[in-house]
């Protein structure tokens, strides 16, 4: 078993990881910026090292300081959480060179999956369905894109190979828009990711985002832990995630699980990861991308399977074989997560940092709240706005929605603005209640 883990992150996920370390008897080291000196993750860890000033680039992304922090505290491993350095292949490589176990997949797998067009190619070769489009990067520029678009039919989507989060992406409805869209997407991609490579896909206008959680050890064993539906998004950022998806049949679930395991096998994936699909219609699934890290919404899967994913991550990184087989994986009930952000929904979601005077999260049966916030804590303006996740479980979707509504009403945060009112609005929406959603839900309905 690992002896001491440096948690290279902050906020709710750092707290989450430290808790599982404590439960396994593994030491934990927190790193923090000067702005996070009084943070909960700093208080909970066994030791803490200040790694820089408030700016993330000089602290949480400061590789020399983070590695050094691991060295001076005698850590044998690093858990990168999500965001920050979690999908930085270079960082994973440096960890390996310094004799630190990176809790995640191999650097070359991170690299491969980070290259979206390469990932597409790999999946095609493995027999995993992908959205119709270019085989790899559009080396032939706009003329190649135009030819391909003609073949597969408009509208099409130009996407950044090195990208994510909606940057370097352009939807093209008409052939005469394509050249300009290509140039703009390329410029944006170059600026955001340092790489202007683009690939092309058919644009599926009405789609559901369905992702599958996978976990694999270093002994060739891998299981899938079911899907999560994450169609409720705002500007490509997920707001609500649930499992099981109201849109999937048991057969769909079986097929998606099999595709996800094919993906794991094709790239030699290790530890926890998520394979994302787009659902264009009943039974119609296409591979989108693979996230080579633990995700924000992992608690949804934990709730319906009864498995602690971080605990699995630590055990796998320690070299232990997976303790479960696919037939041991059981899904029970329905779980749904709501991301609470420090944003003002009445002011175009402007960030709302500041002092939280009172923080009273909902409690009660089958309610989980992952957060670093508490009464009297300060939400800093330097980092992302996620302050809490509420995850509720019910024996079925009807119960979990009722429970969710009760929880969101009970949740009292005074001092900053949050997205709780938005979630309550969504919960009152008839289409959402019926499970009739797609990735354009927020734009269309609210």
């Amino acid at each position, binding site marked *: 078993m690992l002896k001491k883990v440096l948690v290279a992150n902050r906020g709710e996920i750092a707290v989450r990881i430290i808790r599982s370390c404590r439960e396994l008897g593994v030491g934990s080291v927190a790193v923090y910026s*000067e702005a996070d000196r009084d943070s909960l993750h700093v208080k909970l860890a066994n030791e803490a090292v200040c*790694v820089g000033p408030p700016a993330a680039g000089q602290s949480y992304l400061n590789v020399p300081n983070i590695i050094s922090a691991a060295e001076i505290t005698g850590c044998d491993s690093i858990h990168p959480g999500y965001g920050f350095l979690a999908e930085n292949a270079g960082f994973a490589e440096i960890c390996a060179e310094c004799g630190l176990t990176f809790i995640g997949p191999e650097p070359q797998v991170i690299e491969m999956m980070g290259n979206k067009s390469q990932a597409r190619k790999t999946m095609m070769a493995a027999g995993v369905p992908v959205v119709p489009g270019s085989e790899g990067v559009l080396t032939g520029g706009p003329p190649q894109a135009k030819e391909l678009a003609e073949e597969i039919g408009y509208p099409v989507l130009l996407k950044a190979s090195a990208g994510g989060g909606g940057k370097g992406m352009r939807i093209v409805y008409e052939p005469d828009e394509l050249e300009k869209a290509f140039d703009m997407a390329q410029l944006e991609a170059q600026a955001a990711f340092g790489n202007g490579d683009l690939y092309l896909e058919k644009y599926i206008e009405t789609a559901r985002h369905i992702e599958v959680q996978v976990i694999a050890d270093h002994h060739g064993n891998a299981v899938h832990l079911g899907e999560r539906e994450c169609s409720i998004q705002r500007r490509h950022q997920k707001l609500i995630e649930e499992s099981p998806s109201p849109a999937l049949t048991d057969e769909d679930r079986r097929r998606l699980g099999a595709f996800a395991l094919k993906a794991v096998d094709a790239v030699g994936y290790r530890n926890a990861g998520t394979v994302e699909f787009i659902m264009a219609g009943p039974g119609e699934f296409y591979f989108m991308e693979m996230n080579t890290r633990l995700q924000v919404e992992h608690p949804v899967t934990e709730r319906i399977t009864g498995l602690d994913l971080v605990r699995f991550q630590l055990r796998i990184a320690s070299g232990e074989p997976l303790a479960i087989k696919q037939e041991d994986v059981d899904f029970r009930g329905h779980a749904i997560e709501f991301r609470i952000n420090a944003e003002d929904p009445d002011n175009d979601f402007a960030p709302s*940092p*500041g*002092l939280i005077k009172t923080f009273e999260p909902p409690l009660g049966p089958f309610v989980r709240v992952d957060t670093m916030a508490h009464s009297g804590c300060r939400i800093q303006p330097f980092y992302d706005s996620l302050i809490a996740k509420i995850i509720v479980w019910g024996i079925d979707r009807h119960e979990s929605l009722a429970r969710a509504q009760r929880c969101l009403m009970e949740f009292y945060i005074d001092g900053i603005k949050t997205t709780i009112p938005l979630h309550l609005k969504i919960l009152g929406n008839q289409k959402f209640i019926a499970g009739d959603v797609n990735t354009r839900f927020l734009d269309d309905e609210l």
Partner: protein
Amino acid sequence: MTVNKGKLRSLLGRFAKSRFRYIDVKDGRMRIMAVQKPASRASAGAATGREGPLTVPKPSIPSPEMRPPEAMAVTPTTIRSPRVGHFYNVIKEGEPPVLLAGKSIAKGQVIGIIEAMHLKYEVKADLGGVVEELLVENGEAVEYGQPLARLKESSEEA
């Protein structure tokens, strides 16, 4: 089941004006639960399940309290570590340490080495003055911002 709207309106109205935060009322087969935030905001109540969408009135917006993060509690005469690693007092083999009580240092002068990831980084003084006290041992592990040495209070600081 008939809902006495007048009764309901009156009840919720009185609740909204009260100091109470939570109300849970049962009347025959109907049940109303409502919550209000104490600081002059009211949330509309939600019936259990069947009624229409929940409406949350627009709250009044107090200006957010924003302060820059507290400045570190160190005096301006403290030299702090610029990075994480092991701090060494000795810059060159055979040469005496620069950071010693009573010694004078200039702003920008190399006052030590921090070793991190098998690389050595020079630590330059961001203040000049006379060293009052060395705050770390030779070879000690330091974090970002950790005080390394305190200089004497002087009006001649660079």
